[in-house]
């Protein structure tokens, strides 16, 4: 681990045993270089001068501030600092052998501030100089010891590192905020793209996705295709605003009769589909369909007038199909819906799925009207086969 080279003479090169220092320089250039303690303190405010016995003889002003003890000169360096790396440095001789190497140190007491360090030998018999810095822990060191920028040499980039840490934290915060805002907008846009804006129910796109997902997962489910009866009359006699009101009210009633786990979608003018995961028993589906027919059949008030519509439903069960396919399920539900219309509206019809048996008509629940069906659709029989 030790670094040796021409400027870092190894201890022992001409020194008496136990001396950690380098031989007394003889060449002119080296001999001329001398520093007063004040100059050294300016250059390296975190320096330590260690005697040959490992005691601290002097310390730079910043280090003195950090250690904050009255008896600093005379203290044992190794009792004050723990040299963590390289391992095994617990005396001045070992430190001398690692002259020039990067040292990892730590205060033994108090804040246990970590330091980076570098030790170089002085002239023979004069001990060593250790210079310290905070390294990456500069922020903690500055906070723990209440340092100011006057405590650092102007050549030290510690303050710049603090500046950069703070500036980057601010920028990161802004970027995080930006990401959060963009994510919120993305979710909003996505929700909008999957929502029917009039009723707040899902739209066709979201319904198709949900249906596909249920089929892939193999969860049994019931599917209802619902059409409002007499909706065109409301539109024609009371206007589109009344029609919109009826659609919103119908959506609200559908929501009230279903679970939050069910997916309700408006897929056409007055057409709705209901996806009921986990519900495929005919009795339960009948109960739900019956409640829906009953609720939708109740008058909807609009500007003091009652709008009367009813609901016709076609119901399919995924478990009726060995291999359910979205298009087939929808077509069968549609056929069953049409059978309801054909049978007098205000009722629901099961389609028997892959068996291909005739659609099963249940008892009508609401007050089915007898006005002519305004919709041009094939009869149940035609659609079914």
């Amino acid at each position, binding site marked *: 681990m030790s670094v040796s080279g021409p400027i870092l003479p190894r201890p022992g090169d001409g020194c008496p045993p136990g001396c950690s220092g380098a031989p007394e320089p003889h060449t002119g250039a080296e001999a001329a270089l001398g520093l007063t303690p004040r100059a050294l303190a300016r250059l390296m405010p975190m320096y330590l001068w260690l005697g040959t016995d490992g005691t601290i003889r002097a310390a730079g002003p910043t280090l003195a501030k950090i250690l904050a003890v009255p008896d600093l000169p005379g203290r044992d360096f190794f009792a004050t600092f723990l040299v963590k790396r390289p391992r095994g440095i617990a005396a001045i001789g070992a430190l001398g052998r690692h002259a020039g190497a990067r040292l990892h140190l730590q205060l033994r007491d108090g804040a246990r501030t970590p330091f980076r360090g570098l030790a170089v030998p002085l002239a023979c018999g004069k001990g060593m100089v250790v210079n310290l810095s905070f390294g990456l822990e500069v*922020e*903690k060191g*500055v*906070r723990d010891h*209440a*340092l*100011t*920028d*006057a405590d650092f040499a102007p050549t030290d980039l510690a*303050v*710049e590192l*603090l*500046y*950069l840490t*703070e*500036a*980057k*934290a*601010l*920028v990161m915060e*802004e*970027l995080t905020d*930006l990401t959060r*805002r963009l994510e919120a907008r993305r979710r909003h846009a996505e929700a909008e793209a999957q929502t029917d804006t009039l009723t707040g129910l899902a739209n066709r796109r979201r319904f198709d996705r949900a249906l596909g997902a249920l089929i892939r997962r193999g969860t049994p489910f019931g599917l209802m295709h619902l059409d409002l009866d007499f909706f065109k009359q409301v539109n024609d006699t009371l206007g589109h605003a009344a029609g919109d009101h009826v659609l919103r009210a119908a959506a609200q009633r559908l929501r009230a009769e279903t679970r939050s786990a069910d997916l309700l979608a408006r897929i056409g003018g007055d057409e709705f589909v209901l996806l009921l995961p986990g519900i495929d028993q005919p009795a339960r589906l009948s109960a739900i369909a019956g409640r829906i027919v009953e609720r939708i059949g109740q008058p909807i008030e609009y500007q003091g007038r009652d709008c009367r519509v009813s609901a016709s439903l076609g119901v399919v069960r995924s478990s009726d199909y060995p291999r359910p396919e979205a298009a087939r399920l929808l077509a069968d539900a549609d056929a069953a819906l049409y059978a309801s219309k054909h049978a007098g509206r205000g009722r629901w019809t099961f389609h028997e799925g892959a068996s291909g048996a005739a659609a099963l008509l249940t008892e009508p629940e609401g007050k089915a009207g007898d006005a002519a069906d305004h919709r041009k659709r094939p009869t149940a029989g035609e659609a079914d086969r």
Partner: protein
Amino acid sequence: MHGLINRSIQSFLRDTYGAALWLRVARGAGLDFDSFEPMLRYDDALTGAVLASATRILNRPLEGVLEDLGTYLVSHPNLEPLRRLLRFGGVTYLDFLQSLDDLPGRSRLAVPDLDLPQLELIEEGGDQFTLVCRGGPRGFGLVMLGVLRAMADDYGALVLLDDSGVATTPAKMATDPPDRPATGEEERIAINLLDPAHALGRRFELAASGGEA
């Protein structure tokens, strides 16, 4: 223009005159959004449109608005982090002045695509200095004027600032809004540092307190 600059103008107007006024300014400037994103870039013309809209609605000359913007950047509590970054310039107001040459470089360390105008401090001798701003959008010197004034308060220094080398005439600014860089033009602020320690400045702890460790 960088979103940070546009966002600063927006924050200044909102924090000083209220959210409703900012929305009026944004509408008057023809923005199709309510808020600038500080980390995105915008067409330079938008900055000019916002400033023009603000002077119109506030019925104040642009010079005053820009100088107040500079003061706001340093002194408003919402922008304490920015004041801190400026205080990294040094222990005294003189240190701060001498660090201004580095300001664009420091900004780029944090936000690489933020191009601030070039700043140069000329020591005229004694307590006289001149700050030269080059290549910035027209009126940037006025913002710096506000920054210098507020930072003097922050350090507790007593300074006399002469803006005769900065203020473009209101008529000229009206026809030549500050959305285009004043290429080749210089804006000069004369600084007379009367007393570097005139009053007790605000505290500055090198390591940010609280919050993050």
